[in-house]
C-alpha cells in the first residue's frame, strides 16, 4: 500500500477517533451535568438528592436524632446546671435552679423534639410559608399578613418592660431554642424536614413565641359568622334567618352559670329587633371573604361546632373526698401533636402538664395545689365593618363624621421558586380591610388586641388557690376560654375568661356600618363574665355550650351559629348529676363516653312514628334502633342508622328551602343550628313546612305562618325510608352489617400533610355530639389531650394522641396514639419519680 494511502487512512482513523472522543466528552458532560443538577437542585418532585440523601449529614440523620441516650451538654446562656429527665415515653422533666434556666431549658427541649413544627407555626402566623413551600401557601400568607398576627405580636413585645417576668421568660426561652439551632447547625444534624425542603431555621425570637400564641387564638376565635349570617339573611330573609339561627339557642341546653346575673345599669341588652337590610354590595363582600376563608387550610379559622370538654367535681361528691377534675380540649389532631408534655421545677414554678412548642410554660396541667384545664368559650370575638367610601374621597373612609385615610402597611412575601409578592394591607380604625369586592369590609378581631396572656399563664402556673387563679385570669383576652379549676382543698370553679366585645348599637351578628355608631366600646367587666365557684350541685362543666341562660344581659354571640349545640354538655351534666359519688375512673369513662344525647332524645319519638308502618329490611333496621343504647360504637349498626337518619331528616327539611331561596352558603355547614331547630320542633311534635306549600304572600314569614306541612310522624317515616335505601346502596341489604366502623373512621394527620406519615384512617367510635368527640368522615378532630386529676388520691393521669417527637423515625413519633385510642392513661410523674422510672434517660445541661 502506498505510503500516502496509509497516511491518509491513519489520518482518517485519528480523525474518527478524535470525533468519537469529542462525542464521548459531550455525552460525559451532559450526563455529569444532569447528575449534578439533580444532586444540587433536585428533579421534578425530588429534593436536591446530594444534600438530602447524604448518609452523614442529610435526611438519614433522623436515625441518630431518634436515638435517645444519657447526655451531658453545654448550653450558652445557662446560669446554673439543669437536670432533664426523659421518661421512656419521652415525657420530659426539667429541674432548674433559677427560673431563667427553667425557661431556657424548656426552649432547648422543645426545639430538640419539635423544631420544624415550631418553625412551621411561626411561619404560618408571620405569612412566611411560601418562602419554603412555594406559591401553594401564598393565599395563606396573604391572609395572615392582612389579619395581622405579626403586627400584634410586635406590639405585645414592645409593650413588655425590660424587667417584666414574661419578657425575661421569652428571652430565656428563645436562647434555649437558639442553643439547639446552633447545635444542629454545627453538627450538620438538621431535622429531616429542613433537609428535605432545603432551608435552615433562622434564629428564634420572642416575637416568634407570641406569633405561635396568636396562631392558637386565630384557630379558636377568628371566624366569619357575621358574614354567613349576612348571606343567609339576604337569601332567606330576616324572618327565617331569625327563626332558624336565633340569638339564644332554641333547644334545651345546660348553661353552667344559670344566674341570677348582676348587671351594670348602663347595659342595654342587644336583642334581635328590626333587621338591617343586607345590600347586594355587602353580600358580595361577605361571599368573597367567606369563600376565601373556606379555601384556607383546615384549622386556620374557627369553625362551627368547636369541641372541648372539662368539668370538676367537688370533694363532697367524690369517693376519695378530694376534688376531681377532667379536661380534654378538642383540636385538629396532628402528628406531631400540638402538645408537648413536661414538668417544670424551679424556685418559682412547680408545674406539670402540656404546653405548645414555641411558647414557654404549661397551658393545661397542675401545680402543687391547683389544677386547671380549658375549653373554648365560643363567644363572638370577630366583628365585620362595612366602611363608608365615596368617589370624592379616594383612599378614605367616613368615621364619626370625618373622612380618614387608611393606614397602609407594605409586606414582601418571598416565594420559593417564584418572584417575591408585594402586599399592601389597608387598615381602618376597626382593623384590616379584608376585602374590597362589593363593599370595602374591615374586620375587628379580639386577637388583634395586644395582650399579655403569657403573663396570665405564668400567674396561673404559680397560683396556689382560687383567688390567685381568678386574679391571674383578669388579664386574659383571647381566645376566650372556660378555665375549669380544682384544688387540693376540695374546691372547684369555672371562669369563662377573656374579652367579650360590646358594641354601642347595631346588630353585631351581621356586618355593621363602619361609620362609628356600631363600634366596639369595651368588654363585659370581669366580675360579670360567666363564672361559678363551688356551686351547690358540687360539680361544674363546660363543653363549648352557651354558658349562660337567655336572661344574661350582655351580648356574647349568636346562640346557634358558633356555640356548640349543647349535646355534649347535656350528656356530661346528665352523667355528673346522677346520684352517688364519683371517682377518677368515672371521669375517664365520661371522657370516652360515646352516648349521643340527641339520639337519646329523638330515637323514642322516631320509634313511635315508625310503629306499625314498616316491613322487611326497614323493620329490621327499626328493630336495631329500638334496642340501641344510643352509643356510637364501632360495632353498632343502629349508630349508623341513627346518624344517617338525622342527616337525611335535616336535608329533607331544609334542602327545598335552600333550593327555593337560592342560598349560597352550603347547607351542610349549618347542620348544627338547623339540627337544633329541628330538635326543638321535634320535641314539641312539629316539623318545618316545605316552601312550595307556602303562598308567595307569606313565604317570607314561613314557617311561622300556618302553612301545610308533613306531620312529624310522616316526616320521620319519609326520612327513615330514605335512610334505609341509602344504607342498602352503601353497605348492602343486611342492616346488621351497617356498622358504624364501616362509615366512620378517624385519621391523625401529619402536620406537614404527608399522607404516608398519617396514623389511620382507622374505624373509630363517637360522633360530633358525643363527649368522645369525633366529628367528620374521616374524623380529624377530637380530644387532643385527656387529663384526669384526683386530688383526694393525689393522682394525675393523662395522655394525648401523638408522641413527643416530630421525627418519624423516633419511637416517640406516634407511640401514644394507641394508648389514647384505647381510652387508657399514663401517670403524670414527678421529676423524682421519673428519674427512677424504668427506661428513663438523663441529660445534664451545663453553663
Amino acid at each position, binding site marked *: 500500500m502506498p505510503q500516502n494511502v496509509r497516511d491518509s487512512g491513519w489520518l482518517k482513523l485519528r480523525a474518527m477517533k*478524535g470525533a468519537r*472522543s*469529542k462525542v*464521548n*466528552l459531550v*455525552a*460525559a*458532560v451532559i*450526563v*455529569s451535568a444532569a*447528575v*449534578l443538577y439533580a*444532586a*444540587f437542585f433536585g428533579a421534578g*418532585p*425530588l429534593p436536591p*438528592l*446530594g*444534600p438530602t*440523601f*447524604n*448518609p*452523614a*449529614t*442529610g*435526611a*438519614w440523620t*433522623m*436515625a*441518630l436524632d*431518634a*436515638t435517645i441516650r444519657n447526655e451531658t451538654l453545654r448550653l450558652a446562656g445557662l446560669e446554673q446546671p439543669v437536670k432533664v429527665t426523659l421518661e421512656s415515653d419521652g415525657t420530659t422533666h426539667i429541674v432548674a435552679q433559677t427560673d431563667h434556666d427553667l425557661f431556657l431549658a424548656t426552649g432547648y427541649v422543645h426545639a430538640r423534639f419539635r423544631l420544624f413544627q415550631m418553625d412551621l407555626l411561626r411561619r404560618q402566623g408571620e405569612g412566611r410559608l411560601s418562602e419554603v413551600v412555594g406559591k401553594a401557601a401564598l393565599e395563606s400568607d396573604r391572609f395572615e399578613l392582612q389579619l395581622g398576627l405579626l403586627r400584634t405580636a410586635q406590639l405585645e413585645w414592645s409593650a413588655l418592660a425590660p424587667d417584666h417576668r414574661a419578657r425575661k421568660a421569652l428571652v430565656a426561652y428563645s436562647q434555649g431554642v437558639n442553643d439547639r439551632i446552633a447545635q444542629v447547625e454545627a453538627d*450538620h444534624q438538621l431535622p*429531616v424536614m429542613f433537609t*428535605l425542603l432545603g432551608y435552615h431555621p433562622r434564629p428564634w425570637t420572642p416575637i416568634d413565641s407570641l406569633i405561635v400564641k396568636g396562631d392558637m387564638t386565630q384557630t379558636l376565635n377568628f371566624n366569619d359568622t357575621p358574614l354567613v349570617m349576612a348571606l343567609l339573611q339576604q337569601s332567606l330573609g330576616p324572618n327565617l334567618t331569625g327563626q332558624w339561627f336565633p340569638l339564644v339557642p332554641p333547644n334545651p341546653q345546660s348553661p353552667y352559670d344559670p344566674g341570677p346575673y348582676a348587671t351594670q345599669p348602663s347595659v342595654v341588652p342587644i336583642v334581635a329587633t328590626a333587621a338591617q337590610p343586607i345590600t347586594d354590595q355587602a353580600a358580595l363582600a361577605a361571599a368573597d371573604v367567606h369563600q376565601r376563608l373556606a379555601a384556607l387550610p383546615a384549622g386556620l379559622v374557627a369553625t362551627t361546632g368547636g369541641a372541648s370538654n372539662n368539668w370538676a367535681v367537688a370533694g363532697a361528691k367524690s369517693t376519695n373526698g378530694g376534688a376531681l377534675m377532667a379536661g380534654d380540649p378538642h383540636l385538629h389532631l396532628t402528628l406531631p401533636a400540638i402538645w408537648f408534655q413536661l414538668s417544670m421545677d424551679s424556685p418559682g414554678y412547680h408545674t406539670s402538664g402540656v404546653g405548645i412548642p414555641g411558647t414557654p410554660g404549661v397551658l393545661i396541667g397542675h401545680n402543687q395545689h391547683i389544677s386547671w384545664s380549658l375549653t373554648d368559650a365560643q363567644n363572638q370575638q370577630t366583628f365585620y365593618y362595612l366602611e363608608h367610601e365615596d368617589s370624592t374621597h379616594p383612599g378614605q373612609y367616613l368615621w364619626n363624621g370625618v373622612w380618614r385615610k387608611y393606614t397602609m402597611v407594605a409586606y414582601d412575601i418571598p416565594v420559593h421558586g417564584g418572584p417575591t409578592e408585594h402586599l399592601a394591607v389597608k387598615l381602618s380604625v376597626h382593623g384590616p380591610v379584608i376585602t374590597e369586592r362589593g363593599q370595602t369590609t374591615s374586620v375587628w378581631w379580639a386577637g388583634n388586641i395586644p395582650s399579655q396572656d403569657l403573663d396570665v399563664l405564668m400567674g396561673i402556673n404559680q397560683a396556689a388557690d382560687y383567688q390567685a387563679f381568678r386574679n391571674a385570669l383578669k388579664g386574659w383576652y383571647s381566645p376566650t376560654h372556660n378555665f375549669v379549676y380544682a384544688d387540693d382543698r376540695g374546691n372547684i370553679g369555672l371562669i369563662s375568661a377573656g374579652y367579650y366585645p360590646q358594641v354601642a348599637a347595631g346588630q353585631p351578628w351581621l356586618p355593621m356600618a363602619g361609620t362609628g355608631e356600631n363600634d366596639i366600646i369595651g368588654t363585659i367587666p370581669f366580675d360579670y363574665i360567666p363564672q361559678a365557684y363551688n356551686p351547690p350541685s358540687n360539680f361544674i362543666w363546660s363543653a363549648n355550650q352557651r354558658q349562660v341562660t337567655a336572661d344574661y344581659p350582655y351580648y356574647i354571640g349568636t346562640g346557634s351559629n358558633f356555640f356548640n349545640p349543647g349535646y355534649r354538655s347535656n350528656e356530661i351534666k346528665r352523667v355528673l348529676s346522677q346520684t352517688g359519688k364519683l371517682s377518677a375512673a368515672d371521669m375517664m369513662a365520661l371522657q370516652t363516653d360515646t352516648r349521643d344525647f340527641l339520639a337519646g332524645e329523638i330515637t323514642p319519638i322516631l320509634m313511635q312514628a315508625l310503629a306499625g308502618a314498616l316491613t322487611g329490611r326497614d323493620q329490621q333496621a327499626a328493630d336495631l334502633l329500638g334496642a340501641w343504647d344510643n352509643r356510637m360504637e364501632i360495632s353498632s349498626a343502629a349508630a349508623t342508622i341513627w346518624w344517617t337518619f338525622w342527616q337525611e331528616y335535616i336535608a329533607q327539611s331544609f334542602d327545598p328551602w335552600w333550593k327555593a331561596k337560592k342560598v349560597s352558603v352550603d347547607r351542610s355547614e349549618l347542620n348544627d343550628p338547623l339540627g337544633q331547630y329541628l330538635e326543638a320542633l321535634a320535641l314539641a311534635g312539629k316539623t318545618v313546612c316545605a316552601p312550595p306549600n307556602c303562598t308567595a304572600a307569606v313565604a317570607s314569614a314561613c314557617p311561622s305562618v300556618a302553612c301545610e306541612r308533613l306531620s312529624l310522624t310522616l316526616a320521620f317515616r319519609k326520612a327513615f325510608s330514605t335512610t334505609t335505601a341509602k344504607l342498602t346502596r352503601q353497605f348492602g341489604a343486611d342492616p346488621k352489617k351497617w356498622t358504624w366502623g364501616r362509615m366512620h373512621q378517624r385519621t391523625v394527620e401529619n402536620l406537614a400533610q*404527608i*399522607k*404516608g*406519615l398519617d396514623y389511620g384512617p382507622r374505624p373509630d367510635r363517637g360522633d360530633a355530639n358525643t363527649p368522645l368527640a369525633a366529628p367528620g368522615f374521616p374524623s380529624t378532630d377530637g380530644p387532643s389531650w385527656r387529663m384526669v386529676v384526683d386530688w383526694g388520691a393525689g393522682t394525675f393521669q393523662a395522655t394525648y394522641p401523638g408522641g413527643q417527637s416530630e*421525627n*418519624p*423515625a*423516633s*419511637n416517640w*413519633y406516634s407511640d401514644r396514639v394507641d394508648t389514647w385510642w384505647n381510652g387508657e392513661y399514663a401517670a403524670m410523674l414527678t421529676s423524682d419519680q421519673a428519674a427512677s422510672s424504668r427506661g428513663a434517660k438523663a441529660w445534664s445541661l451545663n453553663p
Partner: protein
Amino acid sequence: MRLAAAAALTAGTAVALVAVMLGVWWAPFVVGIAIGIAFPRARIAIPVGAAAGFLAWGLLLVADQILYGLGPAAQGLGAIMGFGRQAAIPVILTCMVGLLLGLSGAWLGCAGRSLVGPRGGSHLLQWPREGR
C-alpha cells in the same frame, strides 16, 4: 492492572467516605474524575469510580444501621417521598446517588483525558498494559 484498580478503588472510597462524612456529599464525583484521569481505559475507570461512590455512601449507611438502626428512618423517608413505608426505596436511591456521582465523575475524567492527550501520553499515571 487489577491491583492498581483495587488500590484506586480503596483509596478513592476512603477519600470520598471521609469527605462525605464531613458534609462534602459531592466528593465521589471529584474522586471519580481523578480515577478517570488516572486510568486509561474507560471500561476500568468508570466501574471503579462508580464503585467508589457507591461504597462511600453505602458504607456510611451500613455504619448508621449498626449504630442506630435505619429501619424506621428508611420507612419514614419512604413515606415522605410518597412510596408508603417502603424502606428499601430510599436505601436504593441513596446508594444510586453515590454510584451515579462516582460514575459520572469517572466518565467525565476519562473523556476529558482522552481528548487532551493520546492514550499513554501526558497523563498523571501510566499503567502498563496487560498482555503486552
